[in-house]
């Protein structure tokens, strides 16, 4: 099935089996937990921010391949970014996953484009978005844990 191969692309599977920045960041300035009660995916996102720049980012938790790979890619993308630029990346990922066919800024997305296969599997979009929602609420500084439900 082509849809399945589009979903589980090699890069995604590789991020799943060897996630980047899969560690607690200590010390950190930001921490947030994201939870998908439907499937039990849980991610803990840590960020250390100095002078409005993400100097370190890492995550822990358990989840499906989609959520894990998405989070792993997120940390690679966000590492070194200015806080003020993060929202733009979030919006682009959100657009890619929720508006199939929309024109995308591929430069901004980079490897994240590998996640686009998820759009053929609507029930899995939440898995891919979990870490991004968590990141957004982390920079918005909301104190509630993030839940996809």
């Amino acid at each position: 099935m082509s849809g399945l191969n589009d979903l589980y692309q090699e890069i995604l599977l590789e991020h799943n089996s060897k996630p980047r920045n899969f560690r607690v960041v200590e010390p950190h300035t930001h921490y947030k937990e994201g939870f998908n009660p439907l499937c039990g995916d849980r991610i803990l996102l840590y960020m250390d921010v100095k002078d409005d720049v993400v100097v370190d980012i890492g995550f822990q938790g358990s989840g499906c391949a989609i959520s894990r790979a998405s989070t792993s890619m997120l940390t690679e993308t966000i590492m070194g970014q200015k806080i003020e630029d993060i929202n733009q990346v979030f919006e682009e990922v959100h657009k890619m996953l929720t508006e199939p066919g929309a024109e995308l800024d591929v430069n901004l997305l980079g490897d994240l484009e590998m996640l686009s296969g998820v759009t053929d599997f609507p029930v899995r979009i939440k898995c891919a978005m979990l870490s991004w929602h968590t990141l957004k609420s982390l920079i918005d500084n909301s104190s509630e844990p993030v839940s996809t439900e």
Partner: protein
Amino acid sequence: MSQQHIKEYVGDKSVEEIRKDFPILSQKVNGKPLVYLDNGATTQKPLTVINAISDYYKEYNSNIHRGVHALSQFATDKYEESRGKVRAFINAGAEEEIIFVRGTTEAINLVAESYGRSNLSSGDDVIISTMEHHSNIVPWQMICDNTGATLKVIPIDDNGVLMLDEYERMLSSNTKIVSIVHQSNTLGTINPVKMMTEMAHDKGAVVLVDGAQSAPHLAVDVQEIGCDFFAFSGHKVCGPTGVGILYGKKDILENMKPYQGGGDMIRSVSFEHTSYNDLPYKFEAGTPNIAGGIGLGVALDYLVSLGMSNIAAYEKELLLYARQQLTGMSGLRIIGNAEQFGGVVSFVMESAHPHDIGTILDTEGVAIRTGHHCTQPLMDRFDIPATARASVSFYNTKSDIDALIVAVDRVSELFG
């Protein structure tokens, strides 16, 4: 793959014939024939049930227990006839002991709210187990919170079997209610509810058996079990959603306060005083799910025509085959290995998360459930976030199981 032969008959009816009674089973999903192995969540409905529901709306839709007109009388008769079928299905002593509710969840809430509220106070214990569905946990937590009673939990061993010596130690004269799942929806474990009921009765406690997963798969005899309450859902026994049953012993129900107030549950109402109706109507406030109740009776007719012990025997063969096939796969672990089991096989894989397993199986047309199955404390017990669960019904075939195995192989291929 093993050449193991399974005779695809339930009693003397072939599964091929049976499948013709279920219109939904002939469809394709993602271009592949539907392999429906999510029967633990809900079962498919035979045409007789679907027709019974549409006949009600087409031919005699009217309210029950209220009208003098012909349609209302006819609908009332059909609805009450269904109650009789339910009584026979679980071998209750009397029809008054059969209360129509929305499902297992509402049945348990009814008992917790009505029996629990009047009979629990601080110092009392309610006992449940580690393998309970959330619907047999949360209502008890709520009523314990309200009354100051303590909720105690029977632990399980690594095979997913209740530790009965711990249960025995837990029981005391403080135990007021024991509420136990008959057959686990996640592990398949069948619990020794008759013995557990006797043990509880020795201490003066009442027992509720959550039969959501046993009623579809084995012959239930509430008098033989001896339990005080038994709950099950229509939609898991090939009946409609939105209807279920609470069985309760008459003398206990008579002493319980109504759960909801409204029409049908009263004998007379004045602003000074209201007197309640007799059993079972005392617990059936408002217009019920009439079509659902009638459909449930027709679903039970269908199961009875096949024979519950025939169903149990055939499903057991399918499950043993599935378990045997899965056991051979590397990196795969079955969760729940009780000797007495039915209905389901749950598993986890080292390489793939259950959610990914579910998606891959779906593209192969194989419908299973992945997640915590509303048994989060049980997931914690096994230190896993979720499982993949295949759950069978009598209309499943050996080739359904083979399709499951092929699809699981595909997962291994993709995820290594």
